[in-house]
């Protein structure tokens, strides 16, 4: 048996590998969530992942695929509905987020022969990481990271000043859609580790922690990855030794790091 087999054969290492893959994409995307004030938007997409799971069971397609497609559709619906401006965006997001979650739960309850671990879906499950999930995570991460690198200047510019970006010929609307597609992918692959309710935390907290120390956007992105990696490895270790739920343990670790960095930065100022 090779070392790789030994690692992949152990569910803790599988979970850790998966978590690190998620942290790799959550860092840069999390920065965009923070910069573009999309936290609530991310939450809505994450909640609709549960609807995606229910629908996947209903029409028997692979879970990851079902989640990505549902998230993309909800994202498109959000973009279209927010253009009509009949409801404030946060109201709209609140309606869609909770309705999607509720519809997902109700649909699942109609399928008694489908046995899903609801707690695992909502809060993440260390034991659930399969080799196939790892393929999804690293495939998704590679795709999202290359897309981000390719679109970086345009995305950053349209985040800084949308109109200026448009005048300079940057396809702002298409970039917005690309960003949503990337979010949907990340949510689909991160769901297993931290659960749908806590994905946004993994996006936001490392990015916010990085902000305290960063001097330019790329620096912030790299630091967010580092803090994400710390949160995932610390959290999963915690979960392993203390038998705590995986998702919340990761988020608690991320939060502790956030507190330490902010306290440290405050100290060094005086």
């Amino acid at each position: 048996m090779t070392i790789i087999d030994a690692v992949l054969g152990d569910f803790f290492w599988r979970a850790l590998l998966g978590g690190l893959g998620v942290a790799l994409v959550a860092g840069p995307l999390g920065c965009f969530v923070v910069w573009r004030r999309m936290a609530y938007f991310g939450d809505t997409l994450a909640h609709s992942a549960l609807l995606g799971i229910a629908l996947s069971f209903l029409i028997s397609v692979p879970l990851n695929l079902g989640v990505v497609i549902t998230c993309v559709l909800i994202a498109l619906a959000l973009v279209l509905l927010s253009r009509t401006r009949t409801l404030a965006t946060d109201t709209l997001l609140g309606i869609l987020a909770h309705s999607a979650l509720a519809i997902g739960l109700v649909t699942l309850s109609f399928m008694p022969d489908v046995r899903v671990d609801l707690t695992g879906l909502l809060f993440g499950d260390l034991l659930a990481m399969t080799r196939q999930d790892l393929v999804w995570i690293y495939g998704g991460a590679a795709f999202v990271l290359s897309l981000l690198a390719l679109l970086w200047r345009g995305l950053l510019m349209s985040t800084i000043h949308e109109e200026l970006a448009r005048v300079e010929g940057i396809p702002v609307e298409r970039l917005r859609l690309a960003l949503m597609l990337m979010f949907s992918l990340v949510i689909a692959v991160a769901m297993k580790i931290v659960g749908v309710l806590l994905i946004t935390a993994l996006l936001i907290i490392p990015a916010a922690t990085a902000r305290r120390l960063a001097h330019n956007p790329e620096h912030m992105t790299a630091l967010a990855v580092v803090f994400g990696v710390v949160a995932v490895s610390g959290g999963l270790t915690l979960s392993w030794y203390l038998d705590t739920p995986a998702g919340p343990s990761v988020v608690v670790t991320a939060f502790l790091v956030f507190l330490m960095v902010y306290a440290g930065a405050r100290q060094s100022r005086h």
Partner: protein
Amino acid sequence: MTDPLVRLEQVTVAFDDRPVVDRVNLTVSRGDIVTIIGPNGAGKTTLIKTVLGIQRATSGQLSVAPGLVIGYVPQHLTLEPTLPLSVRRFMLLSGRALSDCKAALERTGVAHLLDASVHHLSGGEKQRLLLARALARKPDLLVLDEPAQGVDINGQATLYDLIRQLRDELHCGIIMISHDLHLVMAATDRVICLNQHVCCSGYPEDISQDPAFVETFGHQVAESLAVYHHHHNHRHNLHGDVVSTADAHEGCSHDHH
């Protein structure tokens, strides 16, 4: 006479069937400085957004010179506090070489701020940074939305002076929106007073006597402005037709110095 950079013909922009910009004609050529003035809600910003191509016209014709490079100076640069950004990085995001960016910053007098954080700039410095960013693109047309906002009185005059110099150096066309009537009148070639439609247009000292202008801005403003003289080395008339701004300018051999 060179081909115009931008030509608007009977352009209307309506929101919910309510015209915000109503059948406006406007032509800007190289070397022109056109200033749009008008009360709040007159559609000034909507009009320049149409010129910029970020607001679709409901009806009418907009034609721009092929390959036109526009430098846009928006009203504000409000940066998310969560986004760390240095002046250098912001300039480089224009996609131009560092040497061009530095030269542009030099020209607007903020080269010393190259490594400063954009968050720490004053209002005036931000305006100069935005102007530098527009310059780095070597624009054919410079579009400025209230460039002197947040700039103190002394700075305002200098800024308008700089804009005029830039017109001569780049030989570009300039469209700007302004509220600073006094300074505008001294710094501009052509004024368009907008109140949904073009209520009057022409040369500064003429426009201040135009009945439509007096009606829009009141006697006091008009009288105080009449004192400001704009030096032309030629004679001209104001064809006070309400919407025909392009016509008012045509056939006038304008010598810019």
